[in-house]
């Protein structure tokens, strides 16, 4: 490769962009040159937005969702059913579930899952805060919406065991075939779960 030297700030921008997920060297260069070409206001708006998310976005004090105030927009909404708590692994899962428009309850974000092989233990997650929340009262159902993976199931098992003494019913999202998928490509576990969870049609 020829020794093409870019100006310091541009080179630094390319290097920073390359650290973003899914951005390779060519994409980083394209974005950097686009920003160089674009108007000053547009570029500064992007910089200020990035700065805002670092300064203004923080975890909700109750559910650990992303929030701009002490409580997130879901926890502070009086129309939400505070007695049903849906437990998810990360904020991205919450956004996906919220997009269904089906959930009237509130959430609890664990900020990950238990992963013994990676040394991630229950204490690294927000499980203690969930237990405190349940013990404080006013919760009638915990819905476990962890991923249907071995580590998601380990997390769900752990939560079920620590909440056992509270007597609050714990439910889990249904599993099985995804709409739009094909039985031909479904694996055995999906088919087993789908058959066991079949409903009257």
């Amino acid at each position, binding site marked *: 490769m020829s020794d093409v030297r870019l100006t310091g700030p541009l080179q630094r921008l390319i290097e920073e962009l390359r650290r973003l*997920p*899914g951005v390779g060297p060519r994409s980083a260069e394209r974005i950097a040159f686009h920003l160089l070409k674009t108007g000053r206001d547009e570029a500064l708006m992007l910089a200020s937005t990035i700065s805002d998310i670092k300064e203004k976005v923080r975890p909700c004090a109750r559910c650990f969702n992303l929030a701009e105030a002490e409580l997130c927009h879901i926890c502070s909404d009086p129309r939400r059913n505070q007695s049903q708590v849906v437990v998810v692994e990360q904020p991205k899962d919450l956004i996906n579930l919220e997009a269904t428009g089906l959930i009237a309850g509130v959430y609890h974000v664990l900020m990950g899952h238990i992963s*013994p*092989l*990676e*040394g991630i*233990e229950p204490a690294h997650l927000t499980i203690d805060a969930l237990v405190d929340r349940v013990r404080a009262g006013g919760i009638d159902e915990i819905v476990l919406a962890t991923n249907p*993976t*071995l*580590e998601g*199931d*380990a997390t769900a*098992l*752990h939560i079920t*065991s620590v909440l056992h003494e509270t007597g609050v019913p714990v439910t889990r999202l249904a599993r099985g075939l*995804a709409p739009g*998928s094909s039985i031909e*490509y*479904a*694996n*055995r*576990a*999906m088919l*087993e779960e789908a058959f066991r969870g079949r409903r009257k049609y």
Partner: protein
Amino acid sequence: MPAITDRAIVLRLSDYSETSQIATIFTRAHGLVRLIAKGVKRSTSKRVNVGLDLLEGGEIAFVPSKAAAMLGVLTEWRQLTTFSGLRTALSRLYAGLYAAELTSLLNEEYDPHAELFEELEELLRDLDAQQPVEPALASFQLALLGAIGYAPMLEHCIICGHTPRSEPVYFSARAGGVLCRDCEMHQIEKVRMDRRLVGRLAEGRSLTPELSHALRDVLDYQISQILGRRPVVAASLEIALRATGR
């Protein structure tokens, strides 16, 4: 290079990108392989029938790596079992993960151990079928140590060859077995062990739950000495065994 097909168990997964993962997989005829599974997290993936998960067994097709430090490529995965009974208790689940960690740490890539593969499969089947955890795990650990050339001598003193008749009895990982009270002073690295365990093993009798636990303690100690550290899943497993039964 044509793809190789084999039976396999998934030991470890780590994210590589939004949709791809790096998988450590134990195969029956080709040993441990590290593969890149491209697009495996995409729900429309046709190569892999919906995701890869830890401790699932299946049929694999892969192109092996061209050089030692490189990854092979997973081209197809057909899930045959998830050993779903593991997911009913943390002690079973952690025991499975502990076996996966030991298998990936103590085996070399592309060094086949078909018997060990069968032992791992049997352990996962036992855990799935709600068999007691510690005897099944101890049996797998003994098979693993045997496969890599570290089978411990647990029935007799490794130095004099006699069955220890009196306390104290020790185990030394460096010596590779039991030390009786007359021979133990020659070995600095050692740990105290239950003499009843040696007697039972020498007589070929089955172990009580208490002695199964004692055997696992000895094997865990030996494995930690070989690795130079305690496996990361060991602490979680111990907590789960204490809480939910052995």
